[in-house]
């Protein structure tokens, strides 16, 4: 995906998952991370590495996905944007963002999705999982970690998130329990590709829901105290704001009748 000043969709890199060249930009204040990722992920094409978002946005590198650390402020760049502000700045520039952080608090991770992030990968993940996640984000999918999947299931079960179909709820239930597509395929009698399609729809719906939900609503649904999420959650998008582009013609959607 190339950077744009607006949110106009670009052509989806349909072969990105299968191993086509995926262009990646790294934004991390840690030099070791910036310099080691290209060596650890030789299957990806790194088109730039930056210590902060501001420098990256000035350079406007070509990229299908931006690997973004959440914590970018340090003594050398105390004013650097970080957290959800950094995510919003990069996504509003038209990039797809995969947050790469040690952050494990699920509300913070969910807030990243609310800020527009397209993927969340822990720095404790294996390099193979990181590469797979980056390819999926580049291909237009939303990558959600297990902790947030569990949070989403709670919201669905408490009727805070009501836009999912029965099939999507079943897939969500399986993913929340850690089941693989192969395991779910046997239980739900659906092909793995169909299940991946359902999951892609779930993640997209969840991402949009988070972006449009006020923190107070989530606090109520999750039994939190008033204001507990204020420090983490971004302001919801105003009504009428177009959502990020959908890859409406993705191949799995043709098989929805399964």
């Amino acid at each position, binding site marked *: 995906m190339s950077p744009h000043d607006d949110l106009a969709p670009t052509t989806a890199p349909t072969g990105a998952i299968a191993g086509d060249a995926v262009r990646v930009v790294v934004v991390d204040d840690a030099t070791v991370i910036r310099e080691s990722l290209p060596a650890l992920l030789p299957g990806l094409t790194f088109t730039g590495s930056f210590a902060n978002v501001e420098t990256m946005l000035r350079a406007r590198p070509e990229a299908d996905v931006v690997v973004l650390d959440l914590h970018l402020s340090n003594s050398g760049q105390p004013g650097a944007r970080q957290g959800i502000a950094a995510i919003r700045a990069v996504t509003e520039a038209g990039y797809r963002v995969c947050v790469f952080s040690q952050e494990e608090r699920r509300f913070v991770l969910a807030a990243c999705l609310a800020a527009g992030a397209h993927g969340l990968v822990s720095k404790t993940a294996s390099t193979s999982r990181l590469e797979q996640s980056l390819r999926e984000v580049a291909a237009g999918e939303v990558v959600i970690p*297990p902790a947030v999947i569990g949070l989403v299931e709670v919201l669905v079960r408490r009727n805070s998130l009501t836009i999912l179909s029965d099939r999507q709820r079943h897939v969500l239930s399986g993913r929340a*329990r850690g089941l693989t597509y192969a395991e779910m395929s046997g239980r739900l009698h659906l092909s793995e590709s169909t299940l991946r399609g359902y999951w892609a729809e779930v993640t997209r719906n969840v991402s949009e829901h988070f972006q449009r939900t006020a923190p107070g609503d989530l606090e109520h649904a999750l039994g939190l105290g008033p204001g507990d999420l204020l420090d983490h959650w971004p302001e919801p998008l105003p009504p009428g704001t177009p959502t990020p582009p959908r890859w409406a013609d993705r191949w799995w959607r043709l098989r929805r009748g399964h």
Partner: protein
Amino acid sequence: MNGVVKQTEPVSVAGAVKVPTTAAGAERAFALLILGGRFGTVIQMAPSLPQGMSVSSSRSGYLAVWLLAAGTATFVSVVVWRSAKPLTPRGYALDAVVCFVVLLLGLVVVPDELRVGTWVGFQAAYALSVVCSGAAVRSTRVWLAALVAIVCADVAYLLPTLSFATAATLLGNVLTLVVLAGVGRWVALYIRRIAEDGDRARAQAIELGRRDEGRRAQLAIHNGAAVIRMLGDPALDDRSRALLQEEAQREARRMRSYLQGRDHVDPSLTPSGDPTGPVALPRAVRRVCDRFSDLPVHATLDLAEAVVLDEAAAQALDHALASVLLNVRDHSRAETVVIHADAVDDLASGVATGDPWVLTVHDDGVGFVADPEQFGVGLREVVIHQLRPHGMDVEVSSTPGLGTTVTITARTPS
């Protein structure tokens, strides 16, 4: 079986002899009955010996028959006393033959008019004692043959005295032999069967106790053995070693409790250290997860916040879940472990069927062929069998290359 005999509390017979209530004890009781009957008969025969010799047509013949009967009865008494069991079939056959001879010789040495109602004609009483001695013999064929022979000889012995006046008495005497022999044998066999059933029940109880003890030992040491094995891994990093040491301390406490004959109670599982208090399911699960923080565990427990376990169930779940995570740590090479708790069963039917809860532990590791027959001690004893008494069912599904799912299902106590 011998061990069972020694462990059985003996009962007192006549305030002196202790007889255990086992199959061997029953045989000994039979021996004592035979001893009493046979020796008692000899004692009863003794006073009439002089009179019998004086009225007999053959003084020496009467004495010889008397000595043969008394000697045989004494010999049988000694044999059964020493062997602590009834005569063998062969021994009883010989005893019956002697009785048969004594009865027939009675035709010669005892006057006709003294054969009924007197101890001069001791043969009928002697025959009765022999028939009773055979009640517990371990061969129905020998018992029956001996009974027929003795009854025939008794009839022959009494037949010369038959008259209209004595017919009923003679018939009654012969029937006494038959009836007492039959009833005696039925009772003896019944007592023997009860005693043998008792022995089998005791042996089964001991075997069950032994198995239960073995199972308790396995429960007590299984996780500890796994922890020790992992601690011995030279490639272990410091963080994992510290966590394993914490787990080792816990398992050591469990083993010490087992060795001291107490059930392990972990006060840290209960709120505020209350050793008898209930525990919320998420809390019980998180405590185990805290001990396995080196594993990539993601726990989603919100949906089971209302589930509360009693102390015993929480202990069992703690041990079982630790065993599962030890397996994951030791064997799975998993990148992600997801622990999920759900208090509403909407997976299968979409309809809540009460208050069931489901705890799922899934890892994306190497998996294995999930054959319940091949489960090791950890899954079979520590996980499945330990949770079942607390109303928790366990299902293990695994596919090589796809990971493993352990599903624990239960209902909240009412």
